[in-house]
């Protein structure tokens, strides 16, 4: 079953492992499993230690999978100017990131783009320092 997601060879990208402040990225996510998914946001959790959002992604056969994506912590996101309303249920987005090593439908989000091209939560997993 071909899912609507692109596995991109890590070598073609910058070998990116986002900096997570409170746990090891490498223990949870696989930087060889890049994700690029498009779908509809179903829920946003503005919570510690990581904000999360969920997105329904339909594959070519029409099967819908609800993916969970991890962002930075709310304090770090706020310093970058994001709010709990930056992303809302119903938004159609494209998210790039890395999948969890355990093979579940969980990813660490790197970029989130709205349908009109605006990016939200860019750099969201940065380390909580002050915004520029």
């Amino acid at each position: 079953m071909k899912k609507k997601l692109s596995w991109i060879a890590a070598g073609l990208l910058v070998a990116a492992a986002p900096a997570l402040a409170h746990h090891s990225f490498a223990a949870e996510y696989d930087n060889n499993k890049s994700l690029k998914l498009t779908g509809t946001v179903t829920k946003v959790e503005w919570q510690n230690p990581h904000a999360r959002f969920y997105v329904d992604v339909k594959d070519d056969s029409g099967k819908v999978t609800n993916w969970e994506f991890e962002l930075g912590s709310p304090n770090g996101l706020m310093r970058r100017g994001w709010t709990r309303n930056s992303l809302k249920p119903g938004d159609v987005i494209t998210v790039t990131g890395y999948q969890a090593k355990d093979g579940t439908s969980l990813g660490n989000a790197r970029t989130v783009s709205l349908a009109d091209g605006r990016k939200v939560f860019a750099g969201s997993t940065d380390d909580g320092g002050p915004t520029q």
Partner: protein
Amino acid sequence: MRSHLTGWILAGMAALAIVALTPLPVAGQQAAQPDTGLGGPGRGRGANRPPAGPTPRLPENPLLGVNSGKPDLGGKGMWTVPYIIDMQKQGCVLGDQKCYDSLGRQHTTPVEVPFNAAARKFFDHATETNSKDDPEGFCLPPGVPRMMYTPYPTQIYQLADRILFIYEGGAHVWRLIWMDGRKHPADPNPTFLGDAIGHWEGDTLVVDTVGFNDRTWLDAAGHPHGEKLHVIEKYTRSDSNTLRVEATIDDPDFYTKPWTDVTFATWSPGQELLEYICQENNRDLQHLVGK
């Protein structure tokens, strides 16, 4: 032998710097440099930081007790703390002026850690398992000196007889440094942050801490310690923007001799601490598989 975790987290930070700054115009050299979390001019965070001025000082006033006339470690703002994942690779070697001048961004000389066999075994296991067992991943306090290696900001308050550190993250905790001349208890009960006493040596705050439990790691890479850990930290606000943090680690159960790491926090004027309650929804735990 090297920590893969650190290697590619550092690589990731370089990528992250690019992602974080897009679409801001960034000079190629800056973007290619690993983001040590130190901020600073020309980087995304802290790009608007004013140029460094002289070290701010507290007035001469008996009400300020031991801090009268001493460097002001606070002000209206906060310290942005670097993300030191591996003390070997990201800390400056004592006396490495080049590393100091670049606030730790140029690490020409790795810190040599005098492992004993037990520490080597522990560290290698942490490397092999991608630090999945790091206590900080479980939302426990980072410990000492790791409070200054965990990238959540801190504020320092100087009272007449004590100095108070408030940490936004790691575990949203505080640390009290007694400056009233007291000694450590003879046999302190173990705690995450230990028993800390301090004094001024010129313009440097020296903090001596013992009485730790063995439930923290010194860094995310997995440098271990036990209850015999004795840490001496030297804090120097070398200019208005820079807090130099020199930490000397002594633990005879894990290291054959004391060793020292130098790191830097940077001042973020006008910024305030925010709430961070790590244990609220730590769903990562069920997915931390390691390899």
